[in-house]
């Protein structure tokens, strides 16, 4: 186990999440991609804490921040999906592309 291996795992999870966030049409699946990207950030933060600066707790605090960001993203995302679905019956990203371009 080395820092590089943990960071590779984090990069893999981040890239898979990025693929999902870019390619999925369903808004809910898109949010799953975003969650998977943050999942990779958790691994990277924990690995940096352990392999670079284990003496102070800043790396652990970063993990707390990421977990909170995940919860906020999920709650706000579903609230927006619910609002736009109620207003315009939209549940695909392509149907909500008014601001594209």
């Amino acid at each position: 186990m080395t820092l590089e291996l943990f960071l590779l795992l984090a990069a893999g999870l981040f890239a898979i999440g990025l693929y999902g966030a870019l390619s999925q049409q369903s808004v809910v699946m898109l949010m799953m991609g975003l969650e998977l990207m943050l999942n990779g950030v958790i691994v990277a933060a924990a690995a940096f804490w352990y392999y670079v600066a284990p003496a102070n707790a800043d790396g652990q605090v970063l993990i707390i921040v990421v977990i909170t960001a995940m919860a906020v993203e999920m709650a706000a995302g579903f609230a927006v999906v619910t609002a736009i679905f109620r207003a315009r019956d939209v549940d695909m990203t392509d149907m909500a592309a008014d601001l594209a371009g």
Partner: protein
Amino acid sequence: MSVVLFWVFGIGAVVTGFLVFRLDSMAQVTFALLASFLFVAGEVVLLGLGYLGVVIILMMVMEMVIMAVFMIMYMMNPAGLMPMAMYHNKRASVLISVGTFVALAAGIFVVDWPARSGRPPADTTYALGESLMGPQMLTMMTLGFVLFATILATVLLATSRGRYDRLGDDLRAARADDPVHGGIGR
């Protein structure tokens, strides 16, 4: 032992993460994502952060169970009976994500990471608590306000008809503007 666990958790996390975008049923997808989170929590525990690992496990189990409800609400393919292909721009997405991974991996091996300074404290949970209640208090307070703002914003967004829709922006309308009027017709 820990090396074996690292590989098991790591490969598990990546494989289940990949399955999220491969499985047909949205309910299965939710639980694949949950499995990926649990494997990552295992890695965090492996690094000596027992408290944070358990927090991730508990939080993600709750979050994914709530997510399963939403998934079923917005599900286009009940029970995965039909093959699901809801992609757009698939080729560019693959290219961008593979490119991102290659760039990150190159950076990981090229960068000269700093040497380890210090040792982990005997009780990492105690150190985290002391940090959050001391030097990182501002972080903790900011997180608290963000979570509170999220509660307000999500309730506002999810409300279908609130009191401002019914009684006007200054809440001074003589009678509520409801689609179906109640009462006895006065």
